[in-house]
């Protein structure tokens, strides 16, 4: 089975531009989460989606948005890019649970998208 796939692998953007990152979860996984990993730090939670609905949101500005599609794939959008948005963006999938109680399920991560803002 294919793992979590993310595209593109690398991206260079200019300040003020907008970017869209894509993620395909493991087959059968209905929950997708997005994380930002700045160099030298642990991943920071951005969003979690389950069945196309937002289940959780981290402390990120409204410039960050996401959505999940009927096939459970997901996109992360970042508007008005700042230099500080340069990071590795990780997507993770898990089985998910209708009641949202799947927090004991481990996450399966993709290899990430390296975003550089100049």
């Amino acid at each position, binding site marked *: 089975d294919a793992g979590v796939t993310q595209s593109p692998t690398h991206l260079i953007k200019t300040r003020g531009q907008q970017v869209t990152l894509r993620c395909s979860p493991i087959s059968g996984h209905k929950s997708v989460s997005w994380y930002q990993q700045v160099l030298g*730090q*642990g991943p920071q*939670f951005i969003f979690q989606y389950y069945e196309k609905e937002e289940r959780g949101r981290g402390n990120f500005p409204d410039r960050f948005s996401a959505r999940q599609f009927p096939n459970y794939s997901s996109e992360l959008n970042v508007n008005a890019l700042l230099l500080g948005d340069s990071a590795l963006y*990780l997507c*993770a999938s898990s089985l998910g649970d209708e009641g*949202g109680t799947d*927090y*004991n399920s*481990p996450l399966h*991560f993709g290899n990430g998208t390296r975003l550089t803002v100049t």
Partner: protein
Amino acid sequence: AQSVTQLDSQVPVFEEAPVELRCNYSSSVSVYLFWYVQYPNQGLQLLLKYLSGSTLVKGINGFEAEFNKSQTSFHLRKPSVHISDTAEYFCAVSAWYSSASKIIFGSGTRLSIRP
């Protein structure tokens, strides 16, 4: 709120020596605990998890961790490390909080193995 503290940002160890990577957490609710490993230019991979039951959990690649509720710790250990264990290790806690599940990661410990 939850938080995770990894006490060592870097741990250098000689090959075949034992290693312990320390993790402490705080939470107002019950948590589940995880250790993930990140090799260069890759995403995170699950090493092991503690959900309930025995406080000593075994994971992949010979790693194990012990959950200590009284000390709110979940330290990762390996009796004999190999060059291939060179990577960044992240401790994480997961809980149901504010009507959503959330996983919080520590800042990571870089394990470097010297031959």
